């Protein structure tokens, strides 16, 4: 599946946890880390585990941001949440392959129930950015990467701005590494929940530089992010024309394919397939 919107839901808030599946996101990230006070970590873990066991989230993908590997809770988080219908784990502050291997080992120990659970590393430090390609290539469980700009800017000592000049290097490096490792690149959330114009600009920019989706911290951001990341009718029509031209050329035994006077090469076909995948028309 393509994850255009990944919605953070505080893990200790039943009102949000139980309704997260109907707020318009492709994926939910039940948060056991930053959104939960230290003295409520146990409570949130149990609530999320029971929600995953009892609540039907329909087509919405379910993921959990576990606690950081720096603290002791993360292993217990994994052991509990895999008991429910869980699709993936978001691992915060990943800086090296070592962190992924540690999480992979604990998941493997859980046996069959955790066999298909994927990992999304959250890259949010300077060291993580520098090691991102190696990290993304370290496990077959990794399906996407998420950029965390708030912690990243704090780490590099920069001021976080809406324009995001200070995170340009981090964003580009993540997109490049994700493409090379053949996983999805998910952009950092836009944190001003009332600035919808700023959100649109931020999403458009993220899409233009190659991200395939974005994390959101407010349900009110879901529809805007989803709409902007979804291909336009014009893009879908062109993608279908490309695929049709390729199929026709194959049938006719032609090696070189052209469309509207332009040569169609592998990158154009890849882009067309990506557009059709995003619009749910893959294989049509």
């Amino acid at each position, binding site marked *: 599946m393509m994850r255009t919107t990944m919605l953070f839901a505080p893990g200790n808030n039943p*009102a949000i946890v139980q309704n997260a599946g109907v707020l318009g996101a492709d994926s939910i990230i039940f948060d056991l880390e930053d959104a939960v006070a230290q003295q409520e970590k146990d409570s949130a873990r149990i609530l999320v585990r029971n929600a995953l066991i009892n609540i039907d989230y329909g087509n919405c993908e379910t993921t959990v941001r576990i606690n950081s590997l720096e603290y002791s809770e993360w292993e217990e988080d994994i052991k509990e949440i895999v008991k429910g219908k869980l699709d993936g784990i978001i691992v915060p502050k990943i800086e090296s392959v070592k962190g992924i291997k540690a999480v992979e080992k604990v998941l493997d120990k859980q046996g069959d129930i955790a066999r298909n659970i994927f990992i999304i590393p959250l890259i949010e430090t300077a060291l993580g950015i520098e090691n991102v390609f190696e990290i993304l290539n370290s496990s077959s469980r990794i399906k996407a990467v998420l950029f965390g700009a708030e912690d990243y800017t704090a780490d590099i000592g920069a001021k976080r701005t809406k324009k995001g000049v200070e995170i340009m290097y981090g964003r580009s490096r993540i997109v490049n590494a994700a493409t090379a490792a053949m996983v999805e690149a998910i952009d950092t959330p836009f944190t001003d929940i009332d600035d919808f114009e700023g959100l649109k600009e931020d999403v458009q920019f993220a899409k233009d530089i190659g991200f395939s989706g974005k994390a959101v911290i407010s349900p009110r951001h879901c529809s805007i992010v989803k709409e902007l990341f979804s291909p336009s009718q014009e893009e879908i029509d062109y993608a279908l024309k490309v695929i049709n031209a390729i199929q026709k050329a194959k049938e006719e035994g032609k090696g070189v394919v052209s469309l509207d006077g332009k040569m169609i090469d592998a990158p154009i076909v890849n882009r067309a397939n990506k557009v059709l995948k995003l619009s749910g028309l893959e294989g049509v």
Partner: protein
Amino acid sequence: MKVKEMVKSGSLESSDLLVMITPLTEGEGLKLEINSIVKKQYGDRIRDIVMEVLNESELEDSLILIQDRGALDYAIKSRVETALSRIRNKEE
């Protein structure tokens, strides 16, 4: 399992519940009090869920106060489980 001092879990937010477990004198058993905005409609259901979790815990001689704010079954179960786990952790 015995509770030595009051243990709490949950909150009074909408869709949540506050669970408070306090010690009673030996031999008094378990006493359950439920306050809920939907007690008339769901009081028996809340009682059944709470008792199901309590019965698995071997908790003795305690007063269990539930202040419910319209929590679903999974949340009721979760908050009682959390309170019991906190009692267990204090015993260790």
